Structure formats: C-alpha cells, structure tokens
C-alpha cells in the first residue's frame, strides 16, 4: 500500500532531495555522469554575425541528428548533435559554403545525415512517385469531368 504513505515521510523525502540537489549544485558536479566532456563551444552558442547564424541555422535544420529519432541537429539535446552544431557553426564562420559543409558531412556520415533529398540512384522514386500521383490525379479529373464539359 505504497500509495498511502504518511505525509511526513513524503515531506522528509522531498526535503532530502532538495538537499541533495543543493549539494550537487554547490559542488558544481556534472549533472550527468555520462556526459563528462563539456559541450563544444558553439554547440549552444550562436554566431555573432546574425547573417552567418541564419545560414548555419538553415543548414542545421536539414541535418539529421544521428543518435536521435527523427530530429534535426538543431532540435536535439544529444551530445553528438551539439558537436555537429559546433562543426557547422565554425565552418560557416570560416566562410565555407553551406552545401560544401553538407557534402563534407555526407562524405563522413553517409547520405543519411542530410534531410534534403538529392536525386540519386537510391532516391529517385521519391521524386518520380509524386509526378505519377500528379498524373493519376489529372487522369481522374479528366475521366470524370472532361467528357461532360
């Protein structure tokens, strides 16, 4: 009957937790033991030049966080996404073209890292099928209405 614990015990537990949290905070201990390395400087810091940051942001929104499920790197807490954001930002700051950065990342991590689809031997159906759908939709309209117009 754990649901019916006396109130005082719960209050005591909360107080203990608060104490623990205070302790952790005051000692400056890392909050997560597994994240022992501090994040790269530009993981969570914007570039000073708003124009450059906008370029970086646009690119980051189309790069996949490889550790997450369906998140772009600018939508993720994962350390790896942070490292990639850092990489993208310093590359943009050094004047690289965003598509060159994307190409570099794709070379390193595979096509999987880019959300922006490019027509290739493996992705052509993604572009052909919508065209087919357009044709089918046109055919349906034609069949239904053209002869009667």
């Amino acid at each position, binding site marked *: 009957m754990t649901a019916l614990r006396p109130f005082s015990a719960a209050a005591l537990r909360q107080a203990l937790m608060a104490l623990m949290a205070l302790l952790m905070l005051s000692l*400056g201990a890392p909050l997560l033991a597994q994240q022992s390395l*501090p994040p790269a400087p530009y993981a969570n810091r914007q570039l000073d030049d708003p124009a450059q940051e906008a370029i970086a942001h646009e690119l980051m929104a189309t790069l996949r966080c490889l550790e997450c499920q369906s998140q772009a790197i600018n939508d993720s807490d994962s350390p790896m996404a942070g490292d990639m954001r850092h990489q993208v930002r310093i590359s943009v700051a050094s004047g690289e073209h965003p598509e060159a950065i994307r190409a570099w990342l794709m070379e390193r991590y595979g096509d999987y890292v880019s959300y922006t689809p490019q027509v290739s031997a493996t992705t052509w*159906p993604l572009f052909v099928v919508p065209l087919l759908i357009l044709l089918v939709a046109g055919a*349906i309209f034609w069949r239904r209405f053209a002869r009667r117009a």
Partner: protein
Amino acid sequence: MIAELGLAALWLAAALAGLQTIAGFLSVRAGTTTELGGLIRPAAVVQGVFAGLSFCALLYVFAITDLSVKLVASHSHALKPMVFKLSGAWGNHEGSMLLWVTVMALAGALIAVVERRLPDRTMQAVLAAQGFVALGFYAFLLLSSNPFERLPIPAAEGMGLNPLLQDIGLAFHPPTLYFGYVGLSIAFSFAVGALITREVTPAFARAMRPWVLGAWVFLTVGITAGSYWAYYELGWGGWWFWDPVENASLMPWLAATALLHSVSVLAARDALRVWTIMLGVVAFSMSMLGTFLVRSGILTSVHSFAVDPERGTFILLLLALYIGGALLLFALRASTISEGKRFAIASREGALVVNNVMLSAILAIVLLGTLYPLLTEAFDIRVSVGPPYFNPVGAIFVIPMLLVMAVGPLLRWREDRFARISREMIVLGAILVVALVLIAVLGDVALLPLLGLAVAAMLTVASFLPLRGRKLTRVPIATWGMVVAHFGIAVALFGMASESAFTKERLAALAPGDTTQVGQWAVTLDAIVPVAGPNWTAIEGQLSARIGDGEPISMRPQSRTFWAPPQVTAESVLATRWNGQLYAVMGESAGDGRWQVRLWWKPFVTLIWYGGLLVALGGVLAIIGRVRDDLKNRSVLRRAAERREDMRPEDMRPEDMGSEDMAYEDMRSEDMRPEESAL
C-alpha cells in the same frame, strides 16, 4: 487474482468476437433471418462488456502496483503519482493494445445497441466484419502480448516510466488517438458490410457518418495535442518533425478527412459511392499501419525488427489479412456498385472530388516518405526523408486543395456555374494577391511561409462566405460545423506560416544577473535555485522577461533529473501573449558559473493548436447537428419508410441494377426486402 480475471475476461471477449463473426457470416450467407442472426447483437454487446472488464483489471493492477505482474514491474513504480500509474497501464505495448481492442469492442457494442436504421442483413455483415477484425487483435494480445503475464518471483520495485511520458498531456494523448483509430474500424466494418450486401445508399452513409466524424474529431484532437506536447516537452521549439510516429497519426487523419467529405456527398446526393467505400477501407488500413509502425519496433531499426520479429510479423500478418482481404473484396465488388449520381465539375460534388483526390495524393506522399527509408534500410541503404522533402512536395498538393476549399462551399450541388460566384472569387483572388505582394515587399519571408500566410488570409474570409446573405439563426448546426472547421484550417495555417517565417531564436550562456535579448524581449537570469519534486530534482532558472520598460514576467524553466529511470529532461516554460509565445529552456552549466539558456519568441505560434481545436470543434458541431436531425427525423422516416420502398426503383437508374433488376422486382412483390434480393 485480479490479473487472472482480466485474462479470463479477455479470452471470453475473444470467444464472443468469434461467435459474432461466425454467426454473422452464416446468417449473411443464408440470406434469411436465422436464429444465429439473433445472437449477433447480444454477442457484440457482451464482448464489449468483457473487454471493458479486462481493461479495468489492468488499471487495477497498475493502481495497486502489483509487482508480480510483469507489465507493472517493467513499466511502473510504487512512487509514481496515481495518475501516471494509471496512464502507465496504456503507456506500453501490451497495455496499449489492450486499450485498442477494448475501445474497439465498446464501439462495436455501441453500434449493436444504437444503430437500427440499416437493413438487418447489412448490420449483420457490419458486425461480423467488426468481430472478425477484433478477433485478429485478440489473437495478437493473447498469443504474443499478454498484458497480465505474471512474474515467477514478484519484483522488489518497478522499473518506472520514461520521465518524458510522465506528463499529463501525454497520459491522455494515446487514448485520444486510439479512439480515433478505432472509430475508423467502425467505418471500415460499415464499408465491408456494405460491400458484402451491396447496400451503398445514402441511408448507409448517414449511419456511417457520425462514426467517421467522431473518429476524425478524436484524431484531430490527438494530433493537435501530440504536436503541442512535442513542442513544449522536447524543449527545442519544434512542433512537427515529420517523424514516422507523427506520420502514423497524420495518415489516418488525412484518409478520414477525405472520407468524411465523401460520406457527406453520399448522404446528401447519392454520389461518390465507390470513393466512400474505398476511403473507408483505406482509413482503417492507415490506422492499422500506424499501429504497426509504432508498435512493431520497425522504426527503431529494420534489422532489430528482422531479428526479433514475432510481434511485428504478427501485426504484419493482420495487416495483410485485413487490408488485403478488404481490398480483394473491394476489387471483386467495386464494379458491381455503380458510381452513383453524376455531376458537373462546377458543383459542390466537383469541388469535393478535388478535395478527395488531393487528400489522397497527400496521403500517398506521406506514406511514401514514411515507408521509403524503411524499404531502403532493408537493403542496407540509409536515406533520410524529412521536412525539406515533405514540406515542398506536400505543398504542391495542399495549396491547390486549399484554393478549392475556399470556393467549394459556395458552389451548389450537382450543377453550377463559376460565373454565379464570380464576385466572391474576385474578392478572394484579390485578397490572395494583395497579401502575397504586401508580405513579399514588407518582409523577408521564404516562399512556403509566404504562400501559407497569404492563403491563410484568403481562407479566413472564404470560410465565412457560405454564411453570407443567410439568416444566421437559421443556419443548420452542421453548416456552422463546416464554417468553423474551415476557419480552423485557416487559423492553423496562419500559425504554422507565422512560426516558420518570424521566429526569433537566442541561445546564450548567462551568469545570474546577465540579460540577453530575443526579439523584443529582454530576458534576465535572476538566480539559479535547486528544487525537488516527488521523483526528481531540478535546477531551476529564475528568469524575468520584459518588453522595453514593461512589467517583467517571471519564467522558471527547469532542468530535471529523474532517477527511476535515470534521465534528464528540460522543463520548458511558455509565456503566452496574444501575439505569440516566449519559450524558455534551461540547459546545462557552462562550467564557468554561467548557464545555458535557450529562448525563442514565436509570433502567433499558438494559433497552430487553436486552429486544430477549432477544426475539432467544427467536427463536434457537425456531429451534434447531424445526430439531432437524425433523431428528429427518425419517427418521420419510419412513417415514410413504406412510401420510400415503393419509390426506390424509380430512384435507381436502370444501369444501377443490371441483370439483378428482374430478380429484384420478383422478390419485392414477395416480401418488400429489396436489400436481400439484390444479391
């Protein structure tokens, strides 16, 4: 003991589903009212009761944290708040599948009790189909996902529930979606029943419509809530990720949206019969596909799915059986169901056909983009399909559809001329063009948000045009429903486009006392304090935000550390203003006494979800209007029933009847039951 009772109730419910299926099948085949036929409705009702009992048993073992039950031990924890203990019952694979069949059985029981309009034989076929679908899911639960399995030795303590899921919104998100998914199973059973008996009539459409509308309302609310949950819980300000799990709920919604428009045409005009049946089959197929995607583990990895395929294979077989079976039946029977009444392109039906085709096309795109990466992964090629694909490709179909949506409701049924509504079309066109030019000149906005803003402005006006020149108190409730739902689409679209075009982002490392700027807001970190909750501790940032010299508002985002299971989550804080939301998140310590703070100013972002709720409200109004009309007309209809039977042969054109025409006439003189002689 309770767990065993729950399991026994589940077996009994499965047995009743079997009885319902067999009795239904036999009496439909016999073609006359047999004794078996009398069993079908009671079987459906009792099946619902037993499934309900079984689910209550599961809730109970979660409520008391019975750690000898494997599911409780692996997904709950004695220290969780009660509401999350209960929601933990469906926050896992087995429990959610039990919820699925329970909702399905209760829905089946409900139609068995209330639906009296359709011919007996069609109802028998409908309930047989419902029982048959339920049977597959009972088999799945009982044979491969028993929620009541006991542990040989009770666990000392439960493993807890993922902290991300310990959120009140999420606790009720899956049930809402399941009500939608499973409501579509009723539409599916109606479609299959009507295919079997070839009774695709306006009466059939009117019986099916409340279920489609209800399921659609639940799906709309579920998707809207899910999107808002992702928005505030994931802590990065995104509200739609084109994640396969999200797509799994969007696809049934798209199909249901097409279906509800199609079923309205069938009810009002006796047209689009084949479309309606096909969409009924597709909509539930998408529900099952969504369940398969989410529940089989295939999304985590195609390969892990292939290595441990028991559950996935089971659902895949169910999918193949039900979708394949229904499509086969459709292929066999579709040619014998006439298309229904014809109409011109410049007519309400014409616009609704465009709507159906466009929604189906969008559905196909989402389906393709969701399944394609899984397909290539099976061949060891990994590709990513994300927003940069879905947004533009979807827009190719969405924008024309929205333009048609603006004028469609202004057209008359059957045949109309665009010239008659030329003035409205000119006004709407002018709004569109002016908005496009103004926004393009004044702001630096990308193409898609630009189109979104302009179309939203035009739709806002267009959605109210159907009310023009009408006495507002005399407008039927269902028409109000349409107006509100279409207006909701405009509102949501405006929110999406505005968020995409005008969001301001600020990532900063702040020491207490530091101030940073995001949009018009100046945000100061006043202090960092530790706080504790029932099963977590947190670092709380005390922020105050103000515009210029305005009154500061206090915001307290937290970075929470849970320990059962251990995980850190960011508790974002949203300050809502009439023109947008300020979004604040606490990050990690930067190590030098400063703390990472993430801030966004998102103009009009809340309109996305208000729009979604308006769409759902429109659906609710439509249900109220339709059901009220039904109740009002029911007695009138009953009295007119005989007269209608006499008029039917003239109503159906000869090509509807084909060679059955003669048999029809023969039988009719005998017992006045044309729906049976039509076979």
